[in-house]
């Protein structure tokens, strides 16, 4: 299975990941190589096998519904690229 340059650009857009035009061909080649590796999986019959998402067969723990987190806003925003009045700033989304 091989991916085209357009496929790679589409995937990069889905991931909101900027890639350089000059690198597109090499990503297409590398990803196609990875997919070739993966096609070996289809040789094995896995009908009826339960997918394993996690090494430990355990349920998510529950805890009492009480406040455990402190308010760390100032600490966390001290490392933010751009904040104002306690809010994270991004380019205008709504005109």
């Amino acid at each position, binding site marked *: 299975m091989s991916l085209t340059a357009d496929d*790679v650009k589409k995937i990069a857009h889905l991931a909101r990941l900027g890639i350089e035009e000059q690198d597109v061909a090499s990503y297409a080649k*590398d990803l196609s190589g990875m997919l070739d*590796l993966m096609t070996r*999986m289809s040789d094995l019959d896995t009908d009826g096998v339960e997918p394993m998402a996690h090494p430990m067969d355990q349920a998510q723990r529950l805890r009492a519904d009480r406040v455990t987190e402190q308010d760390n806003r100032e600490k966390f925003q001290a490392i933010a690229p751009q904040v104002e009045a306690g809010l994270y700033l991004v380019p205008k989304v709504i005109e």
Partner: protein
Amino acid sequence: MHNKTIAELAKGLRSGEFSSVELTSAFLDRIKQYSSLNAYITVTEDPALQQAKAADARLAKGDAELLTGIPVAQKDIFCTEGVKTSCGSKMLDNFIAPYNATVVDKFNNAGAVMLGKLNMDEFAMGSSNETSYYGAVKNPWDTNTVPGGSSGGSAAAVAARLAVCVTGTDTGGSIRQPAALCGITGLKPTYGRVSRYGMIAYASSLDQGGPMTRSAEDAAIMLQTMAGFDEKDSTSVDVSVPDYMAGLNNRLEGLKIGLPKEFFGEGLNSDVAAAIEAAVNEYKKLGATVTEVSMPTLELAIPAYYVIAPAECSANLSRFDGVRFGHRCENPLDLTDLYTRSRGEGFGKEVKRRILMGTYALSAGYYDAYYIKAQKIRRLISEDFKRALSEVDVIMGPVTPSTAFGIGEKIGNPIEMYLSDIYTIAINLAGLPAMSVPAGFAGGKPVGLQIIGNYFAEDRLLNIAHQYQQVTDWHQQTPKGFE
């Protein structure tokens, strides 16, 4: 001083032979002397000396623990409050962690001294440490070769004695493979044994932190501090932590070792195979019996891993968006441009490759063919191990197909790099604990023996490694120029 074990250093600190400040200064000097190895991203000299002073006071008061005053270093994937935590990436080059990882808190509470933060492959994605934004790390055994990865700075630091002991993390072999290539001892614990809180996530169902040390005894001391349930990590397992030192001297008569024939096939370097065979013979002399086991699904571990790990990575790394922390591009045109360009500039090529792969594998139309299929194979691999470990106590084999390869040799061919993880990846898919133990040399470069045990059998693995280290001295060898 720098060649002593943790137990020997703890004795010296208590007898007054040297202070923690003296010990810490000696290591800080060595870090400067050997800075060309590029093992550290950040050296925390002043805080280290402050911690050392506090440790000396605690030792004087008589309420010290084994690690009190011992100079350690953290892989730069563990968040350290007030200290840059880069994860080997430009994305986090400006990131000063606002809190400590649980593992870091545990070392602080034990009174250990943190020398600094260790170099690593970017976001732990790599097998050679060459994907780091901060440059490649050199292997002290041959500075033209890689130390392995992703915990390459960790392994090089221990091998060159630039820290007494260090942390690493292992998602597909990232503790064991560099430990093997640098001739040190590394332990990847059972998934869930060590808290992942504050350990920057790559593939959450596979990531596990663990100790990297000279000896199994040192690893036991470190794991004692690192292991345990943490309610801040929802996948931390609530199983009591045994005394890892207590069983180190148990004898090995009757130990049943399984050798998977799939670990000794085509692709394994013959000198590495010979070293592993010699190590297994040593175990026979100690009273172990050896049988062959078979794990037919093992050959599909690499394809399954390179679906599952990138899939989890593409989800985990979506948090790096240039909004709340980390790199942000200059003058974004709009929100999409902010995301796209910040991520494009902040991530390196290998990380991008895996984000793209994971995004593809999880996209509509391909999810069943790749992601679900890989998870089914993960189940079968896990069952292979369960079956084998019901017949034998531990599984042994090589950690890597060859010894350390040259810097630049494989970085241009990602698939070839992935294939070098052939013997380590399946263990992460199953969630089992495994060790790499120094087992001799091939062509002057270290070889690692892999020992794989049952869930939560870290004490047994440490015992088995320690007994081998009582009759061999591979773990005590020091690379030339670093004595």
